[in-house]
């Protein structure tokens, strides 16, 4: 009943409609932006060194299969081709029947570049062609180890963050921070309104404080979930319509991680924000009482932003496992390829434990504060009191 009232009253408000619209727009922009930043697709230059048969057929087929426009560039010898590749004048080098060279092999956890995808396709196709042209004894051996040519990198393997990953991480951090803060403050205001209007006295004549708090966070949470679902739907619709890579490859996984983080983050912060609203009598005190809750959120946001544009240090990695900061930091680190899935799972488990602990404390604070009038109750006093 309490949850239903929260949903109905919030959904009716103009601020909710405006917030939803802004968030959906932000998601759409976040999804379309990487595609826009990538600009129009220019053909990749593929250096081709010699060959026992014309390479153009392999290249044409690989380009068609991967949807990558390409332009072959004849190279006089391998040394010249390597030099061109090293100076980024060509995207990859194809030595028919032997190998395909890339400037650097892609990180296994990251979304491969167009050149890497094309290189794989060329290697596969030319390997098959080479296999078929060889004599039978070799066929058997080649089939055993696979038909593809080796794909090698000139320089050592290194983790990289593509523009798409960085933008996805940045947009995710902004959205998670904004959503958690927005819904947190919504709960703070709602709890404070009930306290300041004294309606809480009527409600608690029938309900236990924990029931009222649970109904409030559940109702707001369902609203939050609805808004989240709308954002994900818009993300995919905008991504498919714009052809954005934000909804292809590894990006859906980033969105899934972000959605989990939002839910966990909401569960962690919802009760604390509501309890904070119940602690003060004057609206003017709301900012002060919520500031200690906002600080870890903001720190998480700063770290997530940093992770989106550069590698984070040890502190950032620690914050990725702390329940107050993890919901904001994790998606950005995951998008940047700096948080393997098992570490994310561990972080979520820690967050869930944190949710339980914080919810218990917040319920005690809420129950002892919401009927308190007079001077603002200190946290220690609130934790030490109990009305029922």
């Amino acid at each position, binding site marked *: *009943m*309490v949850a239903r*009232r929260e949903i109905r*009253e919030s959904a009716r408000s103009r601020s909710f409609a405006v917030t939803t619209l802004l968030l959906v727009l932000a998601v759409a922009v976040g999804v379309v932006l990487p595609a826009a930043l990538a600009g129009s697709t220019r053909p990749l230059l593929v250096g081709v060194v010699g060959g026992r048969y014309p390479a153009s057929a392999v290249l044409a087929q690989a380009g068609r299969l991967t949807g990558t426009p390409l332009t072959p560039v004849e190279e006089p010898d391998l040394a010249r081709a390597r030099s061109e590749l090293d100076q980024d004048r060509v995207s990859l080098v194809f030595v028919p029947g032997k190998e395909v060279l890339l400037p650097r092999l892609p990180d296994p956890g990251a979304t491969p570049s167009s050149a890497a995808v094309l290189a794989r396709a060329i290697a596969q196709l030319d390997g098959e062609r080479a296999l078929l042209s060889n004599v039978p004894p070799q066929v058997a051996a080649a089939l055993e180890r696979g038909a593809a040519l080796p794909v090698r990198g000139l320089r050592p393997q290194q983790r990289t963050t593509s523009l798409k990953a960085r933008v996805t991480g940045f947009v995710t951090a902004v959205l998670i921070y904004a959503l958690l803060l927005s819904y947190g403050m919504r709960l703070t205001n709602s709890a404070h*309104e*009930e306290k300041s*209007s*004294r*309606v*809480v*006295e*009527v*409600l*608690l*004549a*029938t*309900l*236990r404080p924990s029931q009222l708090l649970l109904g409030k966070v559940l109702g707001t949470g369902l609203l939050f979930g609805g808004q989240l679902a709308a954002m994900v739907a818009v993300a995919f619709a905008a991504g498919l319509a714009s052809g954005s890579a934000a909804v292809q490859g590894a990006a859906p996984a980033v969105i899934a991680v972000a959605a989990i983080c939002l839910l966990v983050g909401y569960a962690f912060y919802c009760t604390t924000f509501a309890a904070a609203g119940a602690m003060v009598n004057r609206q003017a005190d709301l900012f002060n009482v919520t500031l200690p809750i906002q600080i870890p959120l903001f720190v998480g946001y700063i770290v997530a932003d940093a992770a989106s544009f550069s590698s984070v240090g040890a502190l950032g990695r620690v914050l990725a496992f702390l329940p107050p900061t993890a919901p904001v930091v994790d998606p950005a680190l995951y998008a940047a390829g700096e948080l393997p899935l098992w570490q994310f799972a561990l972080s979520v488990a820690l967050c869930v434990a944190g949710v339980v602990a914080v919810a218990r404390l917040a319920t005690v604070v809420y129950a002892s504060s919401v*009927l308190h009038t007079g001077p603002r109750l200190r946290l220690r006093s609130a934790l030490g009191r*109990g*009305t*029922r």
Partner: protein
Amino acid sequence: MLELTGLSRRFGATVALDGMSFGVARGRVVGFLGPNGSGKTTAMRAVFGLVGLDGGEVSWDGRRVGADERRRFGYMPEERGLYPTMKVGEQLSYIARLHGMGAGEAAAAARQWSDRLGIADRFSDKVESLSLGNQQRAQLAAALVHRPDLLVLDEPFSGLDPVGIDTMSEVLREEAARGTAVLFSSHQLDLVEHVCQDVVIVDRGRRVVSGTVEELARGERPVLEVRVAGDPTGEWAGALGEAGEVVGNDQGTLRVLVAPGRSQQVLDVARRGGDVEMFAFTRRRLSEVFRQAVGQVPR
């Protein structure tokens, strides 16, 4: 029947309840009187578990009051409280549903009580747009909407105009006639005398007097109204001694609390003061009972 037994509660050095005990029977309207700070509101809040008790027990029909019992109680707190931005009708339905009513039943009850309390035309308005008097009516409707077995009202008449007071009084009597136990606090003693059947007077966290209005009005000592010609200040009463105690002076008509069996002596003293224009037994007013009980003018 509601029973408060030995309630005690301290707030720091302040004793709010000091072993307070009294009962409210079904079908009775009980006035709950006491000076400010005497523990009335704390006792009422204790009925709903809104304040923790250091000792004592609240029971309903012999059972300790819990969540199930409270669902059958109605409460109007001293500091009125409704959602300011919620519509009157929706708010009443919501509260009715919290008390266990079904959706249809709650909506019908909300409509019925809005009609009964004269706010039907504001049914779809937000509470914050109502006048204070109408907010008060909406608050009463919120306490009544689920047809409670016990009604606890903290200062329900404050802020009401005479028409509102009449409506409120009527509703309380009707509810009691229906079998509801009604307990309300007030400083408007004449009103309490008019509306209530029983009265409980508390002071410093303890019950000091209780009984039916009739019993209290009758008292252990009779009251005489005496007027002596040419003595508007009642100087003649200075010679009463232990025969009587002046408890009021209404434009020269003194109200004298007479010691048992000494009414003739009072008449003799009055005659010595001049021509006695009036000499009649009368009821004690509740205000007099109150002053005597708490030993002072209401604070």
